[in-house]
């Protein structure tokens, strides 16, 4: 008897490992050359789970975020965030059973400014395949994109986001210790920024989960901003697991520091689509 893995799996698995290693190397080369990153702001408020969208399928999400209490003044040519409604369309296409690529379209609506296109991002992501049998979920996303200067002074930004998650009985934990840098804008020389996000959830029922999401931007790695200048947000959220086809997340968040919008309502409505006729044995 041979080893318990079919022989034909070995070359496939080693190819995937090599690909992931290449992705990691490229990511860290960019980081070493990099400078401070852009915070995506209140366009997509989400702590990522490690799972990726399956191949031959697409996840379409609408992120709706309303800043009920935010910056009321125009600062350095950037529109005030107070009473801005951000609608973000996220389209994520599964590539393999361990990779996906996502696209974002950011918009903003506000009295006096109307409905405006803000920018676009692209976000490839790979994850640790199930066959590695890690005791927790792990994936790595990279996001690069443009946003107009009237909405963010840093117009071209890049982010690398390690993602770890784990479900234990009724509890769910996710950590995204993201690193960001600015490619073009006033913060281009500010170095790497550290912007972690954390989620703790609890399944009250099979359908209804509730929890806390924490988002922060500590500022430059090795020289964090003072707490007053850091972005700190805490959201009370609920996830409704009504169907594998749907993703529903609603929350309300507060930002207690001066650098953070003080009150935000958020909603994520996602729909999973499967394309083509899939063989039952796939």
């Amino acid at each position, binding site marked *: 008897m041979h080893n*318990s893995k079919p022989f034909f799996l070995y070359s496939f698995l080693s190819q995937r490992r090599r690909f992931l290693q290449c992705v990691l190397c490229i990511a860290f080369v960019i980081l070493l050359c990099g400078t401070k990153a852009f915070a995506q702001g209140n366009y997509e408020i989400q702590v990522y789970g490690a799972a990726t969208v399956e191949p031959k399928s697409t996840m379409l999400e609408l992120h709706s975020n309303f800043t009920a209490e935010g910056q009321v003044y125009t600062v350095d040519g950037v529109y005030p965030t107070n009473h801005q409604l951000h609608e973000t369309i996220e389209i994520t296409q599964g590539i393999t059973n361990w990779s996906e690529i996502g696209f974002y379209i950011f918009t903003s609506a506000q009295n006096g400014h109307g409905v405006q296109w803000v920018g676009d991002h692209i976000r490839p992501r790979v994850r640790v395949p199930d066959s590695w049998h890690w005791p927790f979920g792990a994936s790595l996303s990279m996001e690069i994109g443009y946003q107009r200067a009237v909405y963010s002074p840093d117009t071209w930004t890049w982010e690398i986001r390690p993602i770890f998650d784990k479900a234990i009985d*009724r509890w769910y934990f996710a950590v995204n210790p993201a690193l960001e840098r600015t490619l073009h804008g006033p913060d281009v020389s500010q170095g790497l920024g550290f912007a972690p996000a954390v989620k703790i959830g609890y399944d009250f029922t099979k359908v209804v989960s509730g929890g806390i999401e924490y988002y922060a931007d500590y500022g430059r790695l090795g020289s964090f901003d003072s707490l007053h200048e850091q972005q700190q947000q805490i959201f009370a959220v609920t996830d409704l697991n009504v169907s594998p086809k749907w993703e529903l997340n609603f929350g309300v968040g507060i930002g207690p520091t001066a650098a953070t919008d003080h009150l935000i309502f958020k909603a994520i409505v996602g729909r999973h689509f499967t394309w083509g006729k899939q063989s039952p044995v796939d």
Partner: protein
Amino acid sequence: MGEVRKHIMAAGMGIVVEYANNNGKPRWQQPESLEWNYLDFAAVDPAPSFESSVTEIPLVFESKFAGHGAMDRWTINGKSFPDTDVVTLHRGQRYRLLFKNRSTNDHPVHLHRHIFELRRFSGLPETHGIFKDTVLVESGKQVDVEFTANDPGLTLFHCHQQNHMDEGFMMLFRYA
């Protein structure tokens, strides 16, 4: 040998079996369908109707949610092993087990010590002539089987998925 669904095999559910003194590369012949119909093997003559002397025993399969990070707890008639009821059989008596799967999983259920005859699938007329000791009960469906109590002794009944057994999907029959 392996799981025929490709993504499950790719996750490791496969093994190479080598016969002694045989060489050469192993080959995997991938089936392209998961379809299986027990009735293809049923007797062609009309099935006898249900006899009133047969004792019916309903067995309802359900699950209890324990969190998205845990396996569901499985129940038979509302109870998980070892708290499931022990059903008493009388030697020589004919029984009809009514497998009612109200869960969202399919269950290959297995009865020890006995061979049962498949008698009815949800929405279909009575059948006969198919003798098994394990039958797949699809999610939301019912399968009726009949057997004669002819092998005294404690008799285990369970789902053949090990993780379902581990989470309570077992029960015992005993003889009076």
